[in-house]
């Protein structure tokens, strides 16, 4: 966390200055491609681009969050590489990580904004009490989250919303949303917003997005939710190594049954993989060790909007959210029976009346029709 700088050297130059060999650079590019979830065949292009890349200034804002996203990033499974990537950027403000505190810290943010106006990146983690909410719900240095966000974003090149809270409102926004929590894209309409959702996001995805911006100088291709396609283009279900079991109809039904031991599909245990888009299945967690489904637990769907309100974590995707559906059904049935009974009684009465009032057909009456 040095003083904010306006880096003029390209990345290639600066890395050579650090004594990085060409083979080392090639290795860096291979790792970067992997991190960006780009095919290995892209390595030469990445090398060419990285050689010319420039270090951007980054301001990291933390709002209603749990610091899990930052934890995730700093526990990234490739710390050396991580450092390199962080070296590639100039992280000018991150109130959890930076050494400076108090007014000095805030001053660093303002200085960076001024020095790099129109070119700096803003990373946000945590949701924001909206403009109509009580601003006191979350403040930094006496300023509301909303004010800080809007002020910082005004001259930013782009905003990266890291974590489901920043991307979609997350836990703070779960019903009944007491703080009026909103996501970054709810509030920032005039700047490009990239959502890196997840609770927390896969660390490599956070760095991957940075690397992409760094490498190509522009934002990656995004999905309907503003998430980079490279990481969120496919659902957990589609990339899940247990998918063949789903296709074969082999399911674990309890956490201790044969299916669970055999590593069968966790759909019936509530896996939200089918509706969840994230890179866990390939990027994995904890230095590539494993990921939730590999360790036998269904996907919670943490990278999707409203995941806290999307039904029980152990209810299958197909189960409706209606509470006590059986009771609702019975009650509605009973109401129906009463309604039908009433209607039918009226009808039945009409039948009886028709029978009682019925005039017998006589020969005379028949003769009249001839």
């Amino acid at each position: 966390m040095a003083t904010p700088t306006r880096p003029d050297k390209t990345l290639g130059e600066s890395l050579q200055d650090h004594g990085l060999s060409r083979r080392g650079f090639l290795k860096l590019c291979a790792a970067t491609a992997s991190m960006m979830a780009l095919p290995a065949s892209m390595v030469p292009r990445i090398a060419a681009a990285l050689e010319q890349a420039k270090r951007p200034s980054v301001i990291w804002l933390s709002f209603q969050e749990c610091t899990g996203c930052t934890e995730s990033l700093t526990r990234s499974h490739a710390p050396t590489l991580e450092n390199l990537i962080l070296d590639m950027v100039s992280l000018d403000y991150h109130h959890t990580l930076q050494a400076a505190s108090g007014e000095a810290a805030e001053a660093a943010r303002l200085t960076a904004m001024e020095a790099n106006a129109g070119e700096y990146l803003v990373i946000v983690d945590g949701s924001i009490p909206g403009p109509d909410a009580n601003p006191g719900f979350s403040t930094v240095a006496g300023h509301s989250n909303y004010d800080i966000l809007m002020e910082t974003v005004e001259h930013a090149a782009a905003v990266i919303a890291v974590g489901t809270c920043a991307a979609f409102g997350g836990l703070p926004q779960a019903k009944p949303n007491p703080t009026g929590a909103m996501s970054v894209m709810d509030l920032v309409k005039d700047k490009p917003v990239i959502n890196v959702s997840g609770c927390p996001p896969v660390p490599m995805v956070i760095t991957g997005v940075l690397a992409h911006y760094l490498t190509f100088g522009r934002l990656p291709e995004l999905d309907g939710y503003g998430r980079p396609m490279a990481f969120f283009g496919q659902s957990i279900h589609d990339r899940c190594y247990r998918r063949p079991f789903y296709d074969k109809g082999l399911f674990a039904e309890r956490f201790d049954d044969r299916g669970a031991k055999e590593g069968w599909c966790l759909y019936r245990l509530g896996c939200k993989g089918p509706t969840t888009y994230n890179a866990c299945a390939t990027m994995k967690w904890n230095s590539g060790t494993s990921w939730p489904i590999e360790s036998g637990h269904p996907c919670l769907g943490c990278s999707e909007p409203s995941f806290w309100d999307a039904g029980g974590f152990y209810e299958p995707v197909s189960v409706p959210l209606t509470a006590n559906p059986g009771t609702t059904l019975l009650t509605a049935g009973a109401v129906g029976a009463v309604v039908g009974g009433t209607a039918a009684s009226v009808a039945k009465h009409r039948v009886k009346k028709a029978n009682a009032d019925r005039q017998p057909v006589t020969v005379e009456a028949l003769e009249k029709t001839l």
Partner: protein
Amino acid sequence: MPESDPMSAHPATPNGCQGTPRSFGNALPVLNEIRHALEKLVTTGEETRIDLSALPFGPGDLDRLTDWLGTGEVEATVDALGPTRVQETAIPGVWLVDYHNSEQQRLTLHIEVAPVPEILRPQPQDLADALNQLDARLEQETGTTPLSS
């Protein structure tokens, strides 16, 4: 191979409580992809890289794949930004290139289908520099400038 088996799928994973990992059937398609790549290399000379860390492997799938590929004659380590271990498989032209950082954590794992993996080859700019370097050393030894022809 040493304790930190570079070709093992999950160097950091202790053996699962179930013992032997099962195959989840995701390795076979990769083998087919390698076959295609090899065919391309033989017929057109085009090289291919496959990023294994981007594939949805289940526990055991990678081990199965490396078992299938076997071990060839060449093994090399490149020491740049941490060790990169290059292992020829039993199939000539198919290489496993395992990129690690200085803390022995894998950055990524590639299969390269090429006569020689790119990371083993000197880079063109380095070659250009090499001549100068050698000249400098010769000059130092003999005090004369070598004839350039």
